């Protein structure tokens, strides 16, 4: 089926070569990082994880969110999601691939990455994260590719695929839970040391991931003959509304515990992120305001079901959740440092270029997979 990605209109190839250009630039920058060390990033002794690890965390959520299609379709037999299933799973494939790349570019000695397998350490959450992420990638490739192959031949997917589909449900929850455990089990990092972190991660994932998918579906509808269906998108938007509500609610729970208890350690990171002249303060307020506005627009069905309002709403939601998880989360855990000194963090141009390269790789994978899927679907329809 992959050969369908080799024929396309001019528009398709322009996009592919554009992405390849960015990937190339990102790769060259990465070679520079390999030579110079991670000193070309904005990270420091005090803020020892930065943009790479936060992108990884955000994208694990995007990947996990495919389950928001799988559960209604396979467990509740909501057939309207049928057309979108494969496209949702392909988003997961692209997202997990980006996650793995972000881990690799963050390593100080990437050529030793296999040490994680050579010296397996089940006590380390990173070991489990490696297992669940690779497993999830594998499951989604198998499930989506097999289903698409069946669709091309106009037959039902083979029965042996069913266990993989059911397995993908707890597995999706597990990838984001394990990712939250990377943070939530560390003593002395108050911003992360909270039992609700995994739940918060899942809530923000289940609103931001489907939001990205809805926007993708609208783009695909414009560019190809494939239409996910109005009802399906409205149902997915309802899921986004619930998840976003939970996400905002969970943040309020955190704020209550921190500020009503008045325990300094619990308040420090919030104070740093939202108060004073820290570099992240304007971003965090942008996130808070956009988050609240998007939630307010998602709750009434009149604004939620109006595509003209929905698109900016989802864009706001994606920006809000991205800043929260893709910028504030990691920095907030490290600032103030264990000795209560404040070292600011902001990604450098090099760091952003490498990240852009990883995102372009994900976009290229997604483009190729979507090209194949939409072509197969168009052919099957005629």
């Amino acid at each position, binding site marked *: 089926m992959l050969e369908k990605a080799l024929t396309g209109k001019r528009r398709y190839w322009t996009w592919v070569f554009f992405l390849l250009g960015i990937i190339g630039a990102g790769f060259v920058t990465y070679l520079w990082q390999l030579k110079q060390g991670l*000193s070309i990033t904005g990270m420091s*002794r005090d803020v020892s994880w930065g943009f790479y690890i936060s992108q990884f965390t955000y994208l694990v959520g995007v990947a996990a969110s495919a389950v928001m299609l799988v559960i209604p379709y396979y467990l509740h037999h909501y057939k309207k999601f049928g057309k979108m299933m494969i496209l949702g799973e392909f988003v997961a494939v692209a997202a997990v691939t980006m996650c793995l790349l972000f881990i690799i570019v963050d*390593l*100080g000695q*990437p050529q030793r990455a296999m*040490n994680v397998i050579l*010296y397996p350490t089940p006590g380390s959450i990173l070991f489990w994260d490696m297992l669940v992420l690779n497993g999830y990638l594998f499951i989604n490739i198998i499930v989506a590719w097999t289903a698409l192959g069946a669709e091309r031949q106009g037959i039902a997917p083979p029965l042996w695929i069913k266990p993989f589909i059911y397995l993908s449900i707890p597995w999706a929850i597990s990838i984001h839970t394990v990712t939250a455990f990377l943070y939530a089990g560390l*003593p*002395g990092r108050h911003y992360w040391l909270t039992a609700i972190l995994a739940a918060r991660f899942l809530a923000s994932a289940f609103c931001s991931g489907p939001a990205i998918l809805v926007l993708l579906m609208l783009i695909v509808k414009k560019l190809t003959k494939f239409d996910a269906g109005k009802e399906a998108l409205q149902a997915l938007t309802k899921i986004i509304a619930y998840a976003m509500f939970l996400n905002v609610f969970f943040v309020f729970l955190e704020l209550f515990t921190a500020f009503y208890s008045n325990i300094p350690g619990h308040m420090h990171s919030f104070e740093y992120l939202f108060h004073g002249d820290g570099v992240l303060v304007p971003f965090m307020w942008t996130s808070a305001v956009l988050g609240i506005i998007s939630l307010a627009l998602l709750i009434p069905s009149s604004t939620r079901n109006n595509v003209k309002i929905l698109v900016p709403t989802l864009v706001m939601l994606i920006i809000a959740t991205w800043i929260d998880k893709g910028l504030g989360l990691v920095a907030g855990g490290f600032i103030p440092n264990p000795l*209560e000194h404040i070292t600011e963090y902001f990604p450098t141009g090099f760091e952003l270029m490498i990240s852009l390269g990883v995102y372009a790789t994900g976009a290229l994978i997604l483009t190729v997979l979507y090209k194949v899927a939409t072509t197969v679907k168009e052919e099957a329809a005629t």
Partner: protein
Amino acid sequence: MENSRRKFLKIAGISVLGLGVKPVVDVVASEEPQKYAPNAEALRGKRWAMVVDTRKCKNDCTDCITACHTIHNVPDIKNPKHEVKWIWAEKYGHVFPGQEHEYLDHSVENRPFMVLCNHCDDPACVRVCPTKATFKREDGIVLMDMHRCIGCRFCMAACPFGARSFNWMDPRPFVKDENAKFPTRMKGVVEKCNFCAERLAEGLMPACVEACKDKALIFGDLEDPSSEVRKILSSNYTIRRKPELGTNPMVYYIV
């Protein structure tokens, strides 16, 4: 054609088999005698620990830092974002956050508090390391295998004492007088205080302890009731950093 392919496969198969058998043969039939034996002079302990007597520590004195950083080839990187440090001075309020108050004794407020790896009994850094590159020895010393470290910096996120440094760049140009007896590091790996494991093995006290003229740093075996650290602990009120986190630090402070 057919014949030669079969031949090729046969040889390839036997070769692979041979590769698999060799390590087994090595184990059973290794003739080499033990080349390395522990130094008879080595200091042996069951639970190494340190007491920092902050009353004796003088401002502007950097003897322990210089000794440690010179002996261990710690690079002298000026940019605080990229610096590597094994032992350094902090103010009371930063070492014991939450314990400071505005009426604090001035001598305590202005005194240097030396901080270093606590060689915790239940180290969070060891728990999170995905490759066992950082590990706890039987005598309690938490060590780094610089050749195994992948540079993921999970240990730095886990350490609640900020004791670990990462080599953000190649450290070698920043090492002035290289000590050939101790390895230099490469970029992309984490490092920290090793309680001078290499000196203990030669029967020497840690470099910082030896360098301190004021005897503000005391090192010894916690499980030996007659050791100096035990005597000091039983006759002085001592505190540790962040005991509530359950890592059980092995560096004690007399304030």
